[in-house]
């Protein structure tokens, strides 16, 4: 210890006086009540925010579901249109094939008649 100009007994006494002088002071009146009230208030506000957040999340989820439903319907419509287009195309091709065969037969008939 650097305090070599103090005798051990003096140092001991100094430390004893320090301990006495530095005993804890009582907290101010009302400190506990203020802290408890603020803690309670903060918890209530936290709960409101959570409930609010829950409501917003539900709205977002509902919007997402609706968007998915509309999107799905749009895709279905698109596919339906494509299917109808394909069917119409097939009909045209079939008609052309029939017409072609008919024309071939007519042509053959005319050739036979000319002979």
């Amino acid at each position, binding site marked *: *210890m*650097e*305090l070599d100009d*103090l005798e051990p007994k*003096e140092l001991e*006494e*100094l*430390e004893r*006086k*320090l*301990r*006495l*002088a*530095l*005993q*804890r*002071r*009582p*907290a*101010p009146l009302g*400190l*506990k009540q*203020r*802290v*408890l009230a*603020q*803690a*309670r208030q*903060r*918890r209530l506000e936290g709960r409101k925010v959570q409930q609010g957040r829950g409501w917003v999340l539900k709205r977002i989820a509902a919007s997402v579901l609706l968007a998915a439903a509309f999107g799905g319907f749009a895709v279905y419509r698109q596919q339906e249109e494509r299917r109808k287009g394909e069917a119409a195309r097939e009909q045209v091709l079939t008609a052309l094939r029939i017409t072609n065969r008919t024309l071939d037969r007519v042509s053959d008939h005319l050739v036979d008649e000319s002979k």
Partner: protein
Amino acid sequence: MNLQQVLPWRQETTRALELEELIDRHQSMVFSLAWRMTGDRGLAEEIAQDVLLELDRNLGKLTSEDHARFWLRRVTMHRATDALRRRQRREPGWEKGFWVELEERHGLAEPELDSPLGARVEALLAELPEAQRAALLLRYQEEMTPEEIAATLNSPVATVKSQLQRGLKRLRAKASQSLKEYVRGA
């Protein structure tokens, strides 16, 4: 009423009771540390309130009474040191003699608790550099060992021991006449 409705209410009541018990046990420690570090009773009250509110936020992380005490001391010392530094930046030279002036002019001393020696020691403590003041407070108010002080202040043990020695030496030098009278006259 189903379990889900009952449990949150019960948890909250338990938590509120736990907080109240901890405040009852530790508020004077928190306040005393803050006051003796800052030398300002009003500021010490603010710090104590902030620290105890912070305790409420951290209740779930504290695992034992010792852990709570360690946490409170650490946070109080940090907040008090921060508050001191902020004030010193705003008002350089504020700290010098502030404690004595406050006590003498505004009568904020508590006569039933203060002895002349106690008031004098606190005034002298306020004149020490903050690191020495912190070490002496934790040693003589809280009866902590240098190792415990080092853990609280996040400082090497050798540094804490050096601060204790220098702090005591300075206290003694500043109050050599009056303290010697008390020490020798007792």
